[in-house]
């Protein structure tokens, strides 16, 4: 039996088991902490910085998805300051690439778009970087539009941790970072891709999509395979 910790999030008393993250306990208690790189069932990397929370007594912000709970901790997940940070980080994602919702397959089904709406982010003050990037539509079933990729790397992780193919990885660094398949070759030429489609399923935006999906019809019904596989992994006792 694991130890149960009681602590507070946004003034609400909550409880969780040792080893759980702040994000997990918040989710269980209906407290919404945004996060675009977080996805249950794959390892967290704390990279999108949207789930940053304050913990009383610590001068630094911390990412809720990678912060383990402790007894008596006092977490602030929502404050004016945090919301401003989240809005700006989200704005950065928008200005980094070309997000044209109106012609996007994920329009109305997009986690980034939803987040912008939640944060009341309606226009951008930051200078746009938005380089014109390629679309790789060489795969038989799927395509990737790098213009819409936010580098959450869910695809990389799901491909590695769950499908076990490790077709996806990232290349270059900094602003030049792109997800890529095998040796940076066209997806359709990948010899490792199993065409399982998990990467498409987990993509929060319209970056990865099923070919043939028209604008706004890229509804990604989150199939339950991730939690299921998580259970399998746990039972295997990894």
């Amino acid at each position, binding site marked *: 039996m694991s130890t149960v910790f009681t602590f507070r999030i946004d003034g609400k008393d909550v409880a969780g088991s040792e080893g759980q993250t702040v994000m997990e306990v918040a989710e269980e208690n209906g407290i919404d902490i945004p996060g675009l790189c977080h996805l249950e069932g794959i390892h967290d990397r704390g990279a999108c910085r949207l789930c940053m929370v304050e913990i009383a007594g610590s001068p630094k912000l911390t990412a809720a998805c990678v912060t383990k709970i402790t007894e008596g901790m006092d977490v602030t997940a929502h404050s004016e300051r945090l919301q401003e940070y989240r809005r700006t980080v989200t704005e950065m994602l928008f200005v980094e690439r070309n997000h044209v*919702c109106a012609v996007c397959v994920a329009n109305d089904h997009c986690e980034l*778009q939803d987040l912008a*709406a939640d944060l*009341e982010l*309606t226009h*951008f003050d930051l200078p746009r970087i*938005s380089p014109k990037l390629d679309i790789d539509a060489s795969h038989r079933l799927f395509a990737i539009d790098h213009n819409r990729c936010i580098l959450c790397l869910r695809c990389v992780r799901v491909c590695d941790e769950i499908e076990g193919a490790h077709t996806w990885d990232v290349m270059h660094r900094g602003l030049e970072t792109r997800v890529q398949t095998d040796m940076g070759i066209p997806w359709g030429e990948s010899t490792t891709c199993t065409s399982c489609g998990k990467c498409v399923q987990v993509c929060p935006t319209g970056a990865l999509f099923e070919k043939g999906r028209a604008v706004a019809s890229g509804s990604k019904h989150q199939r339950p395979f991730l939690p299921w596989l998580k259970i399998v992994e746990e039972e295997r006792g990894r």
Partner: protein
Amino acid sequence: MSVPAEPADHNAPESAAADAAGNTLIVGYGNALRSDDGFGWHAAALLAQDPRLSGARVTWQHQLTPELAVDFSKASLVVLIDISVDGKAGDISVRRLDPSPVAGSAWSHHTEPAALIALAGELWGATPTVFVVSVGAASLEVGDELSPAVERALPAVVDTVVAIVAEHGRPSGSPTAQ
């Protein structure tokens, strides 16, 4: 990101503008594929979510068309948001319009704001107060993004519209249109 979803539902009014927003019609118009020409869309998207304007009807469209006269006739206050090729990029100007039949342009598909007021008046006897808030354009090139100068004017335009509504809008329940 171009224009997001349709106007959101609003909760209780929170300001003088919200009180005055009843029977207010706000129309942003322009071509969203021609950079700054799409300004009306961007502004309308913001206004649609502004709690200070809850109760107002906010729409956006490519250009003004005659059937808008119907909507004009049902409003006591109409605010149009447009881009303008006159003036400095990003400069905001506000004009109050009088109804007037517009001569000579009867062969384009675009209807002038003044003609809409006149139509609403002629056909339904309505006399809405109409303002045009416009912003000087910097670029009308092909593209779906605003130029920085015009983008920066967005918050000020929103505030301007809110101020106009606060001053000239009538609380809901007291329409002037018949």
